Every structure is written in structure tokens, then in C-alpha cells.
């Protein structure tokens, strides 16, 4: 099944299992969300559990917080990460902090779905990858699945999590198909997946860049360089143990993300790895990300912003010298 169907299946299973799970957001009913990730759910669960809201991200998010405080488990649909910014106040100032500010009297168990990334010329206001913004906020869990099986198992885990979870799917993965075990248990949040074993360089990545890095790793293999590819899956908490163990072996670290390189989460991983493993590294850690420009519309320009497999190969090879 596709990445979108995997999420839909997981959500339906969770709604079946727990009557307090419900969804609020724009355009969920008629076409089942921007990628059909809610298709048929309103018919199945009714309009009180799959709620089509007005276009008002502040209140969609604020209402989600209020409803979470009062004994329900809302899944909040914000369409794209770009519109997550419209609700940033309620995410940062309310959802992430309410438990702490009230001294642990309450919790806000909610999921905030806001897909990241490029997709078919969506341009500057519909293509951003803002995952690092949320990682910076204490109180939030941040998840970015790279494949259908993970989208199924991680969404289940996010819904069952008692902390607020920013759940970032990738628009270009919606139609990607793969094997999904529908009976799978929820994934463990904070656990990375080693997508490919290797010994010469550790490539840390997530979301749509996992596929790009695996393609690069294959090309590198043909050129005699063994790359290990780690799919973080969860950005907060991130799996330091798996990353550090790998880097300690390979002694080379390359982080790849689609988000703007400046101030991106790659910087955090490189900094942590440098602090912990400086004497084990044989070359400076490297990052690949988008240039610090708004995402352009024209295809050749957008392509210039994309990190491709060739960029990964080139950078990894340079690190072997």
C-alpha cells in the first residue's frame, strides 16, 4: 500500500481501538485530505470524529489543545508544514508548554500532522521543510517517516504518545508504495533504522532523503566505498546511540536533509557528534541541505535546491580522500 494509505490504515485502527481519538482540520471529508490520507474515514466514523473545520489554523490548533486537556486525543491536520507556521503560536506557546507551566497537573496528548518538502512546483509557500523549528521547542516530539511501513507504525505510536507530537510526512512520499504489516505494533519513538549497513562513511538522514541516500550508497558501493545509511525516523528524540556507534566505526559523518542547510537539524547532529567523537573522526563532518533561498517554482531552479544522489556521492567521495 502507499504511504498515504498506510497512514490512513493506522489512523482508522487507532480510532477503532480508542473512542477518544478524533481528527480536526480542513477538507477531511470530501476528498479525504490533500493526499487521500483520510479517505472514507468521515463516512465510517461520522462528522463528529472526523471534523471539517473552517480555515483557521490558530483555532484548529488551540481547540486541539483544549480538547486534549479535557480527555480526548485529537489528531490535528494542518495540510502543509507551511500552514503549521500559521498555528506556530498555539503549538509553541500552548501545546508544548501547558504541562510544564501547570506544574504537571495536565497533559496535552495530541498529534499535529504537517507534511514537509518539495512537490511538483508548489513553490515558496507550499514546499518548506521546517522540522528543525519544532525540534528546537522543548515539549515536542518530532517524527518524519520515510516509507509506508514506518508511516503506519509511527503514526500509531504518535497517537498513543502522551506528549504532543509534530508528525511530518513528506508530500513526495504520499504515492510511494511498499509492504505494510497492518498488524504491526506501534514503532518505538526515538529509534532509528539502519537502512543499509556500511563501514566507510555514516550517512544520517530522514524522510524523502532516505531514498536518495540509498541510491547514492549503491553508487558508492560500485566505486568501492561502503556507506552506512541511517534513517532517523524520529528527530526528537533522535537516536544518538545508533548514530554514534556507527560514526565511531566509520569515522566519517555526513548528514543529508531537504531543509535549508543553514540552521537545519543537520547542524545539531554534526555538533553533537563532534563533541562526543572528535578524536575518532578522520575528516570533518559534512552537511548537505538546500541553499538558503525560498523554494522557487521553475523546475530547473527547484532542482538546484534539491540534494540529489550525485551530490551525496560526490561529498562522500570527497570525505574519503
Amino acid at each position, binding site marked *: 500500500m502507499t504511504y498515504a494509505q498506510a497512514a490512513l490504515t493506522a489512523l482508522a485502527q487507532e480510532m477503532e481501538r480508542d473512542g477518544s481519538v478524533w481528527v480536526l482540520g480542513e477538507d477531511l471529508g470530501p476528498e479525504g485530505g490533500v493526499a487521500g490520507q483520510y479517505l472514507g474515514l468521515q463516512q465510517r466514523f461520522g462528522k463528529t470524529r472526523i471534523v471539517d473545520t*473552517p480555515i483557521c489554523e490558530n*483555532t484548529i490548533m488551540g481547540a486541539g489543545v483544549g480538547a486534549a486537556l479535557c480527555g480526548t486525543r485529537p489528531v490535528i491536520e494542518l495540510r502543509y508544514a507551511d500552514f503549521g507556521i500559521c498555528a506556530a503560536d498555539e503549538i509553541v506557546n500552548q501545546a508544548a508548554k501547558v504541562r510544564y507551566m501547570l506544574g504537571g497537573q495536565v497533559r496535552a496528548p495530541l498529534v499535529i500532522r504537517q507534511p514537509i518538502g518539495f512537490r511538483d512546483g508548489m513553490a515558496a509557500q507550499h514546499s518548506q521543510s521546517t522540522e528543525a523549528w519544532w525540534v528546537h521547542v522543548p515539549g515536542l516530539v518530532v517524527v518524519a517517516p520515510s516509507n509506508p511501513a514506518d508511516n503506519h507504525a509511527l503514526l500509531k505510536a504518535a497517537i498513543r504518545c502522551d506528549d504532543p507530537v509534530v508528525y511530518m510526512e513528506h508530500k513526495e512520499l504520499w504515492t510511494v508504495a511498499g509492504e505494510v504489516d497492518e498488524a504491526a505494533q506501534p514503532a518505538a519513538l526515538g529509534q532509528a533504522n539502519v537502512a543499509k549497513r556500511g563501514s566507510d562513511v555514516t550517512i544520517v538522514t530522514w524522510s524523502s532523503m532516505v531514498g536518495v541516500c540509498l541510491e547514492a550508497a549503491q553508487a558508492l558501493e560500485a566505486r568501492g566505498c561502503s556507506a552506512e545509511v541511517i534513517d532517523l525516523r524520529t528527530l526528537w528524540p533522535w537516536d544518538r546511540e545508533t548514530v554514534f556507534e556507527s560514526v565511531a566505526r566509520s569515522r566519517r559523518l555526513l548528514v543529508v536533509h531537504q531543509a535549508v542547510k543553514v540552521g537545519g537539524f543537520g547542524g545539531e547532529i554534526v555538533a553533537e557528534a563532534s563533541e562526543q567523537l572528535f578524536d575518532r573522526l578522520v575528516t570533518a563532518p559534512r552537511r548537505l541541505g538546500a541553499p538558503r533561498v525560498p523554494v522557487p517554482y521553475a523546475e530547473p531552479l527547484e532542482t538546484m535546491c534539491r540534494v540529489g544522489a550525485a551530490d551525496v556521492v560526490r561529498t562522500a567521495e570527497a570525505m574519503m580522500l
Partner: protein
Amino acid sequence: MNEIPPTESVLSLYRTMCLIRAFDTHAGDARRAGKLRGSVHEYIGQEAIATGVCANLDRADYISSYHRGHGHCLAKGADPEAMMKELYGRVGGVCGGKGGSMHVADFSLGILGANGVVADGVTIAVGAAHAVKMKGEQRVVVAFFGDGAMNRGPMLEALNWASVFGLPVLFVCEDNLYSDRTRTGSVSAGPGPLARAAAFGIAGETVDGNDVIAVSEAAARHVREVREHSRPRFLHATTYRWRGHLALDKGLYRDPREVERWQAVDPIVRTASWLSSRGVERTGLSRENDAAIERVARAVAAAETAPWPDHTTLYTDVQDVGAPS
């Protein structure tokens, strides 16, 4: 016109207002004396609104509050000592010393939180009401906010939301004429809060927010309507804050004659006059007020001597998945 309310119930409103006045008189003074930190927004002058509204709520009903939140918490039944310890940032504070004045709340009493972001508590209130309706509960949610909040987008979104989904929310606009240091009338278009609510199909009324009996009667009508028919209502209560926006603001942007005019309609003095006209002894009323001051003094003494939170609590209640250490 309404029936004359029982003297005993007005006396109860009077007691609550005296407690709020005593609490915030100390809180403001303590902030100016440097004993408290951060923002302390006094509710002095506005006591009749929280008191009159909360007198019509059950323990299970929810309220959401804003930065000027002490009065709402006390009126909903919060313990003044636990609140004072919170303001002092000490162990035993209702939020463990992590929230302070601006986030003081006792969730066990249905207090969803005081809030430091204008109008955000209103969006949380409609979400609470959404949950109440989904679960088929009979609770009412009251959203308290100021006239300044009427100009923020989330406020208008929340009015629309509550009306569209038919939610059990009473919106209570405490109109004290000022948005922080700016006169609200100078930055607001149109005929006012009630008209804005009406534009979303929400009925309501304006009430003299310095008349606790009038507030309580209006609240009783609207709370009943909200509870029985699960639809939002709007109460616009006119009032005035005697002090500045917060304790360190002297409020010098206001005409002193304006302050005097409003102090002449002090809700507590008016209620005392009403009660004495009903045969309650003046000395008895003074004793009630003294008792409130004494109760706050005991809370302060307890707060001043309470220990600071243990350093390990810095890291608790942030999040469990990926918790800090």
C-alpha cells in the same frame, strides 16, 4: 426586573470579592517591593465579573483565563495559599512554582489555565467545549478575556468556531477600556464586542461589570442557556482596572479624573451598601473584609517561608519521550 436576590448569596459574593481584592492588593505590593518576579496583573476594580460569573458554575464546569487571572481562579474556588505560593515560586505552589502569576491554575477545579498570550485561552476554551460536546457531558465552558483580545484573529476564529459547531461556551469580555497601555476604543473598528459576537450569530448582552448582582443574574441566564441548548453566548461586562496594566506600570497614560470616576463605583463598596440597606450590619461587613485580609496574610506568611522547588523539578513534566536530563 429580577427578583431581589437572597441576602446570604450576595454576602457570599461580597466575601469572594473581598478575598480577590486582598489577594491582588498584596500581589501588586509584593511585586513592587521586589518580592515577586515577572508580570503581576492586578484584578482590582474588576472583582465583580469573575465573582458573579463563577458563582453560577459547578465545580465540573471549565473556565479559561488570561494574564489577569488571579480573580478567576479564586472565584472558581482555588486555595489562596497554594496560589500565593505559586506567585512566590515556592513548593506547594499550585503549579509547583513553574507557572507563576501568569499561568496560575488549579486544573482539579476545571481551570484550564491563565494564559500569557492574548486570546489564546479562548481557542483552548472552544476546544474544551468541543470535547465536552463529543463526550456528551453537561459541562459549561467559560472563556474570560479582555477587550484587547477582541482585536486578535484567534478570538474571532473562536467565536466562529463555537457558533458553527454549537458549543457550550460563555464568552465573557471584561471590558476595562484598555489594551495594555492603549485605549481600546482608539484601535477598534465598528460598534464593539457585542456586535462582533452578533455577526457570528452569538447572542449576548452588555452588563454593568461593577455590579456583582447584575453580573450574577446575567451570567445565570446565559449559563443556563449555554448548558441547556449547547450554544454559545456572549457577556460584555464593562469595568475598569484601578491599577496599571501590570504592577510596575503606574498607569500614567490615564486621566486621574477617569480613575476617580470609576473608583466611585467600586464593586465592593456598592455591594456593601446594598447589603447594609438589606439590614446587614456595617461592622459585620468590615469583619468579613478583615477576615479576607487576614486569610491572605496567612497565605503570604506561608509562601514567604516555604522552600524553593528542588532543582530536580526543573526537568520534570517537559515531556516523557525524549525527556531532558
